């Protein structure tokens, strides 16, 4: 079934199809229509779930954590400061190995207040141990939500599905709604191995010592660091699992892309723009224009940001002379996080500086600063000249006072 709907509704339908059982959410722009749609679906009986109107985002994820520990499939969604408010819980869910799915409708963070799109919110959660995926359009939103539940429950790591506030959440696009029966086949019911159960009493996530410690049977059980190392190891193995799931989804639903990077005209490109989210699709017109001018340029959308697909970046993009990262976040005091991650990946891939792609970074669109196609065109054209030195951080679209 093809429909025309907003990105938020696409996400809500993805959650509905995934048969989430417990939903707790707190309203924050631009996520609100997503939770409103879910409330409507539940109250009308079109979705069989518990909707819990919590009094804060911190509680929203607390409800999900507890519900997931009790064995239910749990979902929440938020943006910006709401995500920051639940930051403590974000860490917790990952360490507790709970397969929670959360939609982050990307919005800039205060101070000062902004309600418009950028990626600073999701970036602030980059190192928490959550899988982080970015959708570039509405079809990817609904598909990624469904894949996210499958991935989370396979690897027992929570998944953040990010999509741009307003640019995707509030715009209307056509997309296909997957068939419900087929989704049920792709995503079976959640079965927790261990859950809160009076028949099997146990204490979840209690204080864990720095050193390993024997249990009552004398088996040596891990210390804190071992648990965290397991999370890291399992996160790296997600790279394989995410690819498997992408393949299965494509086979069952007839569409899908590379699980890590979605490339456009990159195979023979000397210069490749790299970005996250909807911006990547905007770049395609820019790429086409520059190609008309004879500049061998392409654009790559990073779909899976954590775990970072470093090998795929090197293999698929490493042939380029220069990678130009365009991102909507800054690690203040250094440079854009995606830019730094890309550089690190390339650094690890080869010691030969001559072989390695140059990397430049642009920061743009913070607080919803309008991104003009002409600006993208000019920036990319400038960066594509052989004389252009790679600059770690340049601002695009900044309007300094005269």
């Amino acid at each position, binding site marked *: 079934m093809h429909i025309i709907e907003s990105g938020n509704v696409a996400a809500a339908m993805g959650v509905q199809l995934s048969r989430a*059982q*417990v939903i*707790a959410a707190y309203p924050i722009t631009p996520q609100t229509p997503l939770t409103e749609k879910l409330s409507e679906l539940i109250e009308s009986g079109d979705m069989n*779930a*518990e909707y*819990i*109107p*919590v*009094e*804060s985002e*911190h*509680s*929203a994820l*607390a*409800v*999900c*954590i*507890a*519900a*997931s*520990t*009790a*064995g*239910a499939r*749990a979902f929440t969604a938020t943006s910006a400061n709401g995500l920051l408010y639940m930051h*403590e*819980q974000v860490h*917790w869910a990952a360490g507790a190995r709970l397969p929670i799915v959360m939609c982050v409708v990307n919005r800039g963070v205060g101070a000062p207040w902004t309600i418009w799109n950028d990626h600073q919110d999701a970036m602030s959660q980059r190192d928490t141990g959550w899988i982080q995926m970015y959708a570039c359009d509405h079809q990817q939103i609904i598909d990624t939500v469904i894949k996210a539940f499958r991935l989370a429950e396979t690897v027992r790591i929570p998944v953040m599905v990010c999509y741009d506030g307003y640019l995707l959440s509030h715009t209307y696009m056509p997309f296909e709604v997957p068939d419900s029966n087929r989704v049920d086949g792709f995503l079976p019911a959640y079965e927790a191995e261990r859950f*809160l*159960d*009076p028949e*099997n*009493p*146990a*204490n*979840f*996530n*209690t*204080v*864990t*010592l720095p050193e390993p*410690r024997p*249990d*009552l049977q004398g088996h040596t*059980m891990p210390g804190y660091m071992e648990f965290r190392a397991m999370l890291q190891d399992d996160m790296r193995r997600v790279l394989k699992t995410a690819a498997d799931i992408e393949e299965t989804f494509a086979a069952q639903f007839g569409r899908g892309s590379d699980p890590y990077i979605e490339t456009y005209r990159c195979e023979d490109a000397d210069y490749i723009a790299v970005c996250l989210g909807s911006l990547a699709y905007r770049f395609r017109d820019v790429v086409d224009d520059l190609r008309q001018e004879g500049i061998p340029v392409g654009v790559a959308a990073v779909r899976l940001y954590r775990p970072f697909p470093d090998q795929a970046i090197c293999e698929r993009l490493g042939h380029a002379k220069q990678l130009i990262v365009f991102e909507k976040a800054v690690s203040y005091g250094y440079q854009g996080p995606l830019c730094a991650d890309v550089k690190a990946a390339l650094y690890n891939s080869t010691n030969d500086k001559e072989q390695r792609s140059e990397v430049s970074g642009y920061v743009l669109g913070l607080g919803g600063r309008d991104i003009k196609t002409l600006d993208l065109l000019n920036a990319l054209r400038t960066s594509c000249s052989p004389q252009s030195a790679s600059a770690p951080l340049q601002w695009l679209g900044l309007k300094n006072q005269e």
Partner: protein
Amino acid sequence: MQGNTSILNLPKDEFVHPGNRACSGCGLSIAYRIGLKALGRETILVVPPSCLTVLQGLYPIASTKLPCVNVTFASTAAAATGVLGALRAMNRKGVQVAAWAGDGGTGDIGIQALSGAAERGDDFIYICYDNEAYMNTGVQRSGTTPHGALTTTTPIKGKPQGKKDVPAVMAAHNIPYVASCSAACPLDLFDKIQKAKTISGTKYIHIHTPCPSGWGFDPRYTVKMGKLAVESGLVDLYEIENGCFRLTGTSKSLLAGKKMKDIEPYFRSQGRFKRLSNEDISQLRRTVTNKWETYRKTYEA
């Protein structure tokens, strides 16, 4: 109040293993041990950072024989809501949810989530054990620390503010059951938890919990100290059921005319009150007297 369970009628099953890390003479240990007897086997516990976390044990050994989820400090009530949501969504019946949190985790950092849950009427029993400071982290002052108490963050002058009345805050949410108990009166506590189990909606139980380590008295007097607080009219055993207030146990007897002990021995026998002056005690005595006058005017014995 119905119930009036006697010692001989208490369930014999123990739900807490000995050899745990609670202090010697811990008031919480008594309340927890008897409280779990009241809750029974079909219970899921929710516990934030607190003395109870330590009592419950370090990975991989748990001292509680019931399923329990440890949660972040501010989120106890929200987590209880989450467990309930899952039980409903999965159609798991016959299991109740009980949160156990300290005074800080309830009345300070936890109040927002608790207020939200009470407003939603989420069907769990929330038990606050009030040892009147952040005891687990080393006796820092909390909202329920009484006036004048020395704590590690009020180390010289004692707490200038008074004690936050958390049960009153909960009663203002119009939840069906609010109770005030003492760890020194475990049979009264048992009956109140048992009653709470029969009520739908959010139930709040506040337990005044003497703490020998934090209050500065010999552990052998934990029960005696708790009883003294009740017998001097400082701490009242009561329940508010559907908005209707009634005193219970010793407090009820005091209303009926049993002689009330003076408050001074309670304060003078605890190290944390050594900065209280005679004027402070007089002021406190007046407060207690006024409170009981109001009780006598308002409520029947």
